[in-house]
């Protein structure tokens, strides 16, 4: 029962978070066209963000770096392929809920190709045959249904999220067959519970390790050249998430809307200053 109760609490939390997410937003004061994600919990989020960086520095990175350097790339690829394979049911459930036929075709084709030619999912042959990996989750599904992200939320360990997506993460647990490993009604019995938990945890850990190991240099770069790393990550995460929800091509990206009056102002100034020296050539202090 302990197991079921835990998930019930989580489900209620998810629903209430999603409800928060659909509240109307106040326009962020810095917004000019493209809307920044509201961040009413910024002080708390910054604290969690800093703690995450600390955990990363002390624990995750020291594992991810040697993993990335010492484990042969084909082994790393196999691990990633298996993690992605294990995520197939979650993606499929969400593709169906989104009514996304392209995604359903992609996920089915990947499953069939990789399970057969890809030797039980060890190799991602489908990606080379025009079916690149894509993941669909319940946060995206809510996004497709028109639910706003709500507010920005930095989760311990998992990092950037939003009210909507954190709720979605919980719902996805229910779509994951690993959750029910050993039978749902038996899940409260200790042995089975451990089994289910072990499988899910192993998948999550392997997926997280893989992701971190593949992004060591890029995250270093991001962190080093930021003047506000927290704000940059928040923006990148939000833009990326918007693009995922649109299944984005660059043409459909969440482009900054340069409003008409912004451009009109520029044009007026250009006409007015045609003969004047250009602004912006002043010497630096």
């Amino acid at each position, binding site marked *: 029962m302990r197991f079921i109760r835990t998930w019930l609490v989580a489900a209620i939390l998810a629903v209430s978070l999603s409800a928060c997410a659909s509240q109307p937003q106040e326009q962020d004061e*810095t*917004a*000019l066209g*493209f809307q920044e994600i509201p961040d009413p919990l910024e002080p708390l989020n910054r604290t969690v*963000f800093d703690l*995450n*960086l600390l955990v*990363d520095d002390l624990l995750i990175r020291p594992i991810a770096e040697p993993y990335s350097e010492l484990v042969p790339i084909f082994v790393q690829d196999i691990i*990633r392929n298996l993690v992605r394979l294990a995520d197939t049911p979650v993606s499929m459930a969400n593709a169906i809920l989104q009514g996304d036929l392209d995604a359903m075709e992609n996920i089915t084709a990947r499953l069939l190709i990789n399970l057969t030619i890809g030797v039980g999912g060890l190799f991602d042959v489908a990606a080379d045959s025009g079916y690149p*990996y894509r*993941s669909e989750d319940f946060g995206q599904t809510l996004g497709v249904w028109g639910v706003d992200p709500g507010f920005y939320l930095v989760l311990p360990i998992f*990092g950037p999220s939003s009210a909507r997506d954190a709720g979605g993460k919980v719902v996805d647990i229910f779509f994951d067959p690993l959750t029910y490993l050993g039978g749902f009604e038996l899940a409260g019995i200790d042995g089975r519970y451990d089994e289910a938990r072990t499988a899910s945890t192993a998948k999550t850990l392997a997926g997280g390790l893989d*992701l*971190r190991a*593949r*992004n060591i*240099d*890029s*995250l270093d*770069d991001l962190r*080093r*050249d930021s003047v*506000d790393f*927290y*704000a*940059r*990550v*928040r*923006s*990148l*995460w939000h*833009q*990326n998430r*918007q*693009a*995922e929800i649109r299944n984005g*091509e*660059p*043409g459909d*990206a*969440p*482009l*900054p*809307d*340069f409003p*008409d009056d*912004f*451009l009109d102002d*520029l*044009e007026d100034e*250009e006409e007015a200053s*045609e003969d004047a020296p*250009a*602004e*912006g*050539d*002043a*010497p*630096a*202090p």
Partner: protein
Amino acid sequence: MVRGGRRPFATVVMTMCFYLAAAGSAAAEDKDAGSFLVSLSQRAIAELSDQSIGDAERQQRFRDLLETNFDMRAIGRFVLGVYARGADPSEQAAFLTTFKEVLAQRFLPYFRDYRGEAFAIDEIKPDPTNPKLSLVVSSITLENGNKLPVGWRIRRANGSFKIIDVVAEGVSLAITFRSEYTSVLKRSNGDLPGLTAELRAKLASGGFTPERD
């Protein structure tokens, strides 16, 4: 802080750089935004990857290309968000000068070490958010054969084309800079000279130089 299974941001940035480089000069007689971009790319690669010149000359060329082909005044104002309004013009000018140096330190190394990535135009259309802008969708083929789609938002001003934003993997360069800079400004009650000083300090320590393998 991890971004689910996507190409590393560094790759994106690198691609952008190529595109920036690619964004050479607009031939005045060339009325087509796509041709503008193609000729800019060729010119930027030729000028910036030239191994016969020194760093000072390379930086000057980068600045010239940036000035001629990017609408730096519009971008500089955009990235300051609401804080551009009411800011002292000389403080804004100082910020803009510094911002260009940040771009040079961040992106020039990719051109200097150009590795033959190919640039192609896939699609040209009116910008979905504003009919006054054109959106050129291009793709850069990386060394490993992966194609990186990059969008260019181009504005025609005074008869010439100017790039106003670069978008890759759903991430807009202008929005990303704006989010970060306005966050700093918000926390300092709009202290623009403070932001400029912080950027200059980072510049002095080479903090924007990308790490290369």
